């Protein structure tokens, strides 16, 4: 896996520097100009560093990368195990697209709002930016996130491969309600059809209540314009809902009296249940969590470690996360990083002393609705092995006796 390769390279390079520094400490007489095998001076203060630049780049020792799968119909996951805190770098925001990433000239971008409105309107990107803007921190998660880990768990899965189709950060744009009021919604309006300008012209029907609640049309993430793979120049953003409904490259909103029953709300993104029915329009992403450290491919040394991870819920705030290190026999309440924001990734932490034996780590999130993440057997009994989306059961990491951490399903 590229992850292992990248990690190994970063670790080796880092180890060389660390070893060099340790050597320098032991041998005070060593020359400040000493250069370790990587070609990097042991003492960076002995010579002027690199020049200023127009755009900074990551340290050569840090190379987090996404994991592209597929080409025109594909996805690329966020390397959760390489990130700390909650706000994620723009180039590591996950992506999923159904027919390639369109190139859109912002000067020619148009958003059409029509249907059951008093005034069918066209808005340019500049128009959208003239409306009162708002910036909010929210998670975004693909409703298929965790499918591979559920159906075919493998010990060598990293947090990225288990649950990397979720990211978090600050979205800036205009409230969808503001845009709809400019067109004037007519009575009888119950749904919106949102449509992208990608080759799939991906479309989803959205209950209009979401527009009056917290839906946005966003044009920026973490302070800069959206990246093309995330919907440049503007996308719908529906906080807490499965990410495919946050239509990227948004070009059309039709206000309607009924759902469209498009392909991606009938044949896809529906949830067959063991009773022979399928749940439809299952928009909300329920409470979920994943420990991002320690996790594969980490190998622990005995002693104190911080168990750290992310929890989130599409129904509001996370109110508690419990962590077990003994496979669920005992649970301890983890500390939540404040501020705890609704519908946003919440970092949880718990210090843990590993004595050297086998251990199984799990996290269990509870949100403000009172909903607690289900155990895997509870999830499977309710949804079945063949379920396709909304995989939010408790995950586990197994620590082997030699300290190697592997995914436990």
């Amino acid at each position, binding site marked *: 896996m590229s992850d292992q390769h990248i990690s190994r390279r970063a670790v080796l390079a880092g180890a060389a520097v660390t070893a060099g520094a340790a050597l320098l400490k032991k041998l005070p007489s060593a020359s400040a100009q000493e250069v370790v095998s990587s070609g990097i001076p042991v003492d960076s203060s002995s010579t002027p560093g690199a020049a200023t630049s127009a755009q900074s780049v990551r340290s050569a020792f840090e190379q987090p990368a996404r994991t592209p799968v597929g080409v025109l119909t594909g996805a690329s996951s966020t390397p959760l195990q390489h990130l700390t805190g909650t706000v994620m770098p723009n180039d590591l925001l996950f992506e999923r697209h159904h027919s390639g990433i369109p190139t859109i000239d912002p000067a020619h971008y148009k958003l059409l709002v029509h249907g059951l409105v008093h005034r069918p309107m066209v808005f340019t990107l500049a128009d959208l930016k003239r409306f009162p803007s708002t910036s909010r921190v929210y998670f975004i998660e693909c409703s298929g996130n965790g499918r591979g880990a559920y159906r075919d768990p493998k010990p060598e899965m990293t947090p990225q491969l288990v649950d990397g189709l979720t990211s978090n950060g600050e979205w800036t744009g205009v*409230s969808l309600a503001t845009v709809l009021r400019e067109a004037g919604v007519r009575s009888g309006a119950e749904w919106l059809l949102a449509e992208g300008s990608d080759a799939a012209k991906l479309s989803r029907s959205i209950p209009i209540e979401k527009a009056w609640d917290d839906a946005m049309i966003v044009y920026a993430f973490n302070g800069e314009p959206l990246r093309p793979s995330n919907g440049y120049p503007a996308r719908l953003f529906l906080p807490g809902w499965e990410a495919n409904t946050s239509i990227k490259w948004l070009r059309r909103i039709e206000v309607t009296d009924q759902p469209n029953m498009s392909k991606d709300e009938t044949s896809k993104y529906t949830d067959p249940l063991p009773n022979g029915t399928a749940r439809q329009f299952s928009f909300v992403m329920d409470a979920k969590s994943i420990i991002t450290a320690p996790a594969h491919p980490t190998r622990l040394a005995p002693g104190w470690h911080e168990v750290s991870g992310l929890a989130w819920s599409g129904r509001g705030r996370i109110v508690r996360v419990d962590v077990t290190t003994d496979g669920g026999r005992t649970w301890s309440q983890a500390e939540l990083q404040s501020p705890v924001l609704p519908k946003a990734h919440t970092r949880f932490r718990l210090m843990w002393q590993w004595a050297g034996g086998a251990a199984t780590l799990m996290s269990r999130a509870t949100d403000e609705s009172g909903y607690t993440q289900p155990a895997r057997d509870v999830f499977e009994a*309710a949804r079945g*092995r063949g379920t396709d989306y909304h995989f939010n059961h408790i995950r586990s990491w197994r620590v082997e006796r030699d300290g190697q951490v592997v995914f436990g399903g």
Partner: protein
Amino acid sequence: MSRVPRPIAIAVLGVLAACERPDVSRERADTALPAPTLVTAPASAIGDTPRASVSLTPFRTIGRRATAAEIRAWDIDVNASGVGLPAGSGSYARGAAVFAQQCASCHGARGEGLATNPRLIGAEPRDFSFALDPKIPKTIGNYWPYATTLYDYINRAMPFTAPSSLPANDVYSVVAYLLAENGVIDRSRTIDAVSLPRVRMPARDRFVPDDRTGARGFR
């Protein structure tokens, strides 16, 4: 311009019900409205469900009216009632020819699916047991609840490398071919704007509203 209305900011301290739904009965198309009314959350509300900077009334100076031609060019969706279906019609025979030429290279000669491209044909299983086994392929015949979705999807996104390139008669014909091959309609059936919404799909009654509500219990 001195007459540009200045938004009025209102600090909302408690009930936000006022912005839940606009009073559409009071909307009049061409009446000049007073200054836009903005709602901003109080400063102490960081972390509360944010509804900051939501305009309750239109600005009237942002954006422009859409032309009928602009709407016509992009308004491609077809809903489950058949609204949006164009004139024209399709037959099984023509659909078989179009499928062979436009679709078979990805979906297989008989719609059996190739590589990662999905299978399209198959009436089994009839018991909708998909939750029990991820390997059961979902097809038009065993899973799709509405026949109109075929027109909507094929017209908007297929063929994959040249989406929206098929004339309406070809789309109708491919729909007729796929429905017949799935055993949903007879090969003799003509598919058009009237007949397509009337096609009853085998899985039509399988779909139920989302009953998850948060709180205790797992569904």
